[in-house]
């Protein structure tokens, strides 16, 4: 089946186009099922590839390339026509992600059938979702990082469309613009990194790039700059500090769309690109360190914001940012396997959380958790599945999140204790605020009776995807952590393939440079956590944080929590204002507008004046001078001659009758005959 892997991104694209152009807008349109069908095909392909690899039937990585277009290029002073390939590269992480992305997308689409059924732009929504998924799948399978970047940007476009789906309202419009611009800001870093990589290696092919790095052909400085550029891109897309401002606002879009953005596509892309270009980071320890710290700071800042928010979707958005920080931190600490593992498990439970929250919102028509409470009695299925997701994200054994988060903590422990402790604190904060969410929403007493009485369990099309995702949130961790499968699925790339590649390369100098390559690192010896942490975290700390949250938020008024909030009012305000990052962002926008206005003022008042009007003025001065010269000298001479003949004419005219043609003719005839006589008699 793997030879059809190139179809995976194309099927949803086709589905999207058919949906978009296939029929008129109609809430009962059967077109969305095309998208679901397409996604099912993708899922089947992905499953066959993944199962084939796990059971040993398929050898990965699998790569196949086709010619895309030819362009003239100059490398090292030589110009030639080079053919840009386009193709698929499926390594084990890609196989896993194919499965995850198509599964989550399929679930989201099934869910959306019920969720979006009375929207006026029903069909367009499904077209966007299919296209969104296609872009992500394209990024996952692409063997060419430029194509990957194109998919990445298209994802930015579709997220823009989805976030601003209800564009009649002000909020989504601002949010979509913010998302696009912030990610674009990060993208420019990735853009420059690609330019640099191409300038250094002359290729966009991932495998060839890897080889260049493995052979040590790229200077560490260049690798560091490229890695930082890639990191910037990831920071934008995966909403890392300080570019995280867009993600909390991104929930202005339809909830299932948010689920897709937060779980499997948009934000996962940043982590995915870092992992795809991980060899660049391996060659740039400084960038690795930066990634670790940025991940850590993001994880902490977002978790802190989640502690105080009462908007259910916003809490989930902050938790996404926080979890992405975990992943980036893991990657930065060298925990490649841990980071990608968490990306996978996170996709399941985060999609589940968003879809569950959507189910709740669908039922009570508010986002404010203070108006919920006790909903477990009304929506048992939603409650049960949400509980699974919360346990998973908190890291309770044996749910999926436990395994992956544990692995991240181990990676951090091995890398740097200064990262480990704050990260552990953040993990506990996660447990706290997620339990708080669950408690506020489902447990305790109903705070708003009216809403409570109207609440009802959602239809099967909504609950079925929840159950499927709950299954994976429960089992994915166990399955992958079992028997070292994680290391097989997410093998950490190394720069030590240098030796093999060098042996295959005939050039002796290349081999020599590879042998002396200082970038080749020996794999770190993995240490386990000390026992008290290894068992203490899941056994004591996490349950402790969860119980604390439960007791603090159980009552109808949660006085304890409110008391804490007023006791630490400045901090609470700081967190409510989201670390003032939004204000900083707005200030930046205002600043740019100011610069733009200034630029235009300069253009209209200085450049235009100097180079157009000034030019004209110069010409006019020259013209005035020459006009003066003309009038005073040249024209005076002409006037003199003219005046003379005028005077002569006036004098003569007084001699003859006026206006009679024949008289003139007579004078002419006389003159001619005189002239003729003169000439002939000479």
């Amino acid at each position, binding site marked *: 089946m793997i030879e059809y892997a190139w179809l995976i991104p194309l099927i949803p694209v086709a589905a999207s186009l058919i949906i978009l152009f296939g029929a008129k807008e109609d809430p009962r349109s059967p077109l969305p099922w095309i998208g679901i069908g397409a996604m099912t095909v993708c899922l089947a392909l992905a499953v066959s590839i993944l199962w084939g690899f796990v059971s040993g039937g398929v050898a990965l990585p699998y790569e196949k390339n086709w010619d895309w277009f030819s362009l003239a290029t100059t490398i090292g002073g030589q110009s030639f026509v080079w053919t840009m390939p386009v193709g698929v590269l499926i390594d084990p992480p890609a196989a896993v992600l194919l499965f995850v992305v198509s599964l989550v997308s399929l679930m989201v689409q099934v869910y959306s059938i019920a969720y979006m059924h009375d929207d006026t732009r029903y069909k367009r929504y499904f077209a966007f979702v299919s296209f969104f998924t296609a872009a992500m799948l394209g990024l996952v399978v692409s063997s060419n990082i430029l194509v990957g970047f194109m998919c990445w940007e298209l994802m930015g476009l579709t997220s823009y469309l989805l976030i601003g789906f209800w564009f009649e309202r002000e909020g989504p419009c601002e949010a979509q613009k913010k998302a696009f611009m912030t990610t674009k800001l990060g993208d420019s870093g990735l853009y420059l990194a690609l330019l640099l990589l191409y300038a250094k290696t002359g290729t966009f092919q991932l495998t060839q790039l890897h080889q260049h790095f493995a052979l040590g052909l790229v200077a560490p400085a260049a690798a560091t700059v490229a890695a930082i550029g890639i990191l910037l891109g990831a920071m934008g897309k995966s909403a890392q500090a300080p570019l995280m401002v867009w993600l909390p606002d991104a929930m202005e879009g339809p909830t299932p769309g948010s689920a897709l953005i937060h779980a499997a596509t948009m934000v996962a892309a940043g982590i995915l690109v870092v992992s795809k270009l991980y060899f660049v980071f391996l060659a740039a320890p400084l960038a690795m360190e930066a990634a670790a710290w940025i991940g850590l700071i993001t994880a902490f800042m977002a978790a802190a914001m989640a502690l105080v928010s009462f908007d259910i979707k916003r809490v989930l958005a902050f938790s996404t940012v926080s979890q992405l920080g975990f992943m980036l931190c893991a990657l930065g600490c060298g925990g490649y396997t841990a980071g990608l593992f968490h990306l996978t498990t996170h996709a399941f439970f985060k999609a589940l959380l968003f879809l569950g929250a959507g189910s709740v919102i669908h039922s009570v028509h508010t986002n404010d958790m203070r108006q919920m409470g006790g909903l477990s009695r009304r929506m048992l299925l939603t409650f049960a599945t949400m509980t699974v997701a919360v346990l998973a994200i908190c890291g309770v054994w044996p749910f999926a999140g436990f395994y992956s988060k544990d692995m991240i903590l181990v990676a951090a422990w091995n890398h740097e204790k200064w990262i480990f402790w704050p990260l552990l604190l953040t993990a506990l904060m996660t447990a706290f605020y997620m339990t708080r969410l669950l408690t506020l929403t489902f447990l305790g007493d109903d705070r708003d009776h009216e809403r409570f009485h109207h609440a009802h369990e959602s239809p099967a099309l909504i609950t079925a995807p929840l159950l499927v995702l709950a299954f994976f949130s429960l089992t994915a961790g166990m399955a992958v952590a079992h028997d070292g499968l994680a290391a097989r699925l997410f093998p950490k790339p190394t720069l030590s393939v240098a030796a093999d590649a060098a042996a295959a390369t005939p050039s002796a100098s290349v081999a020599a440079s590879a042998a002396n390559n200082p970038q080749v690192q020996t794999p770190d010896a993995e240490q386990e956590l000390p026992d008290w942490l290894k068992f203490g975290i899941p056994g004591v700390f996490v349950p402790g944080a969860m119980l604390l949250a439960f007791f603090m938020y159980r009552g109808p008024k949660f006085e304890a929590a409110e008391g804490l909030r007023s006791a630490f009012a400045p901090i609470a305000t700081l967190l409510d204002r989201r670390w003032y990052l939004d204000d900083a962002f707005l200030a930046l926008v205002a600043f740019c507008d100011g610069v733009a206005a200034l630029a235009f003022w300069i253009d209209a008042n200085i450049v235009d004046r100097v180079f157009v009007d000034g030019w004209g003025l110069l010409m006019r001065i020259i013209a005035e001078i020459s006009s003066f010269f003309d009038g005073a000298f040249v024209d005076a001479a002409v006037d003199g001659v003219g005046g003379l003949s005028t005077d002569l004419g006036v004098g003569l005219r007084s001699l003859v009758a006026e206006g009679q043609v*024949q008289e003139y003719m007579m004078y002419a*005839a006389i003159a001619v005959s005189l002239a003729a006589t003169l000439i002939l008699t000479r």
Partner: protein
Amino acid sequence: MTLADYMTVSALLFLIGVFGALTRRNIIGILMSIELMFNAANLNLAAFDRFLHPEGLIGQALAVFVITVAAAEIVVGLALLLAIYRNTDTTYVEDFHLLKG
């Protein structure tokens, strides 16, 4: 018949033409006089050609050209005349003194 005879006739024709052009008061008359002058010139051309270069036909050809041009000229002249007549209801030159400065 010698060249001088032709020249005499032609000179006479020309002078008649000049006289007419200078004295006629009717514009049509003036135009006719001008035609006479043309024809005097044509006669000259043909005669010179016949007597001085009997091998060719250049003079005659030139004469034909002149006739054509004269026709064109008379067309323009008559058109102008018509325009004048429409505006002033007269064809007598002494009634015009547009050139008077």
